[in-house]
């Protein structure tokens, strides 16, 4: 624990301790080192929801079989994707808008609790939202039969920047290098 890196790499240790110590660490959220785990959980939920909820339960009940049978396989896949995208975007808008505007307008810090007495901070909510956002585009990129080169480039660029921004927010020392890295990745994706 004497190693200087140990402190930055094990922020969960500070859970339950004073908020002052936490906010002095200058990062968005204590969950930042665990975004891989959050992204995995989100991707699993999205995959299961697509198959068990949307495709086999909700869509056959919401639309007549006439409407669904008329579509080709390609059209049905993009029809399912549109529903998935709309649902996830509504989830994102309802969860992320409040903490984002609270921080942007200066009413809250990323380390402020989301509601009085809550253990969840505004920053936690933004980090989780960024992972839902990434999972949404990963799903679209993998699931659709046909995707235009422009929207493919847009989705790739967006998720690379989103994840790079999360990484940059965690380790300030790599900020400068990380930016060039994103730019290169983005140009490559275009």
């Amino acid at each position, binding site marked *: 624990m004497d190693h200087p890196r140990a402190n930055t790499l094990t922020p969960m240790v500070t859970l339950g301790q004073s908020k002052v110590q936490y906010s002095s660490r200058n990062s968005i959220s204590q969950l930042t080192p665990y975004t891989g785990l959050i992204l995995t959980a989100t991707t699993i939920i999205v995959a299961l929801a697509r198959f068990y909820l949307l495709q086999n339960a909700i869509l056959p009940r919401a639309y007549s079989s006439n409407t669904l049978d008329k579509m080709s396989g390609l059209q049905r896949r993009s*029809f399912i994707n549109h529903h998935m995208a709309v649902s996830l975007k509504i989830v994102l808008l309802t969860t992320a808008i409040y903490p984002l505007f609270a921080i*942007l307008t200066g009413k809250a*810090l990323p380390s402020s609790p989301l509601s009085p007495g809550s253990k969840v901070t505004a920053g936690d909510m933004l980090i989780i939202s960024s992972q839902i956002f990434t999972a949404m585009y990963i799903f679209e990129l993998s699931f659709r039969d046909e995707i235009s080169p422009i929207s493919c480039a847009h989705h790739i660029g967006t998720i690379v920047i989103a994840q790079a*921004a999360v990484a940059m927010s965690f380790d300030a020392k790599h*900020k400068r290098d990380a*930016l060039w890295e994103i*730019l290169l990745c983005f140009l490559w994706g275009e």
Partner: protein
Amino acid sequence: MNSRVEDGFLLTSCAGAFDVIAELWPHIAMIFYRTHDSNHGFLARLFYATMWLEMVGTLVETVVMMALFGLLWQEWSLSLKIATPMLHVLFSCAQL
């Protein structure tokens, strides 16, 4: 109040929020395009409304992002000053 480290993440989150709103309307329009494919009058109005929502959304997005760039510009490092406008132009091209 916010440190510079947070600025990058918050700007990206803000752009992401606009992206989510901008992408929401075409998805809804495409769902109705499949389910109400014989009601041409309705579809024409729906896509017209989608076009207007996209246009107003892009306008608001541009105003807000430019305002944020202007407010934060002096605090940025050189790499941010070069990278951010480039990324903005690239994304504007992708939207067209």
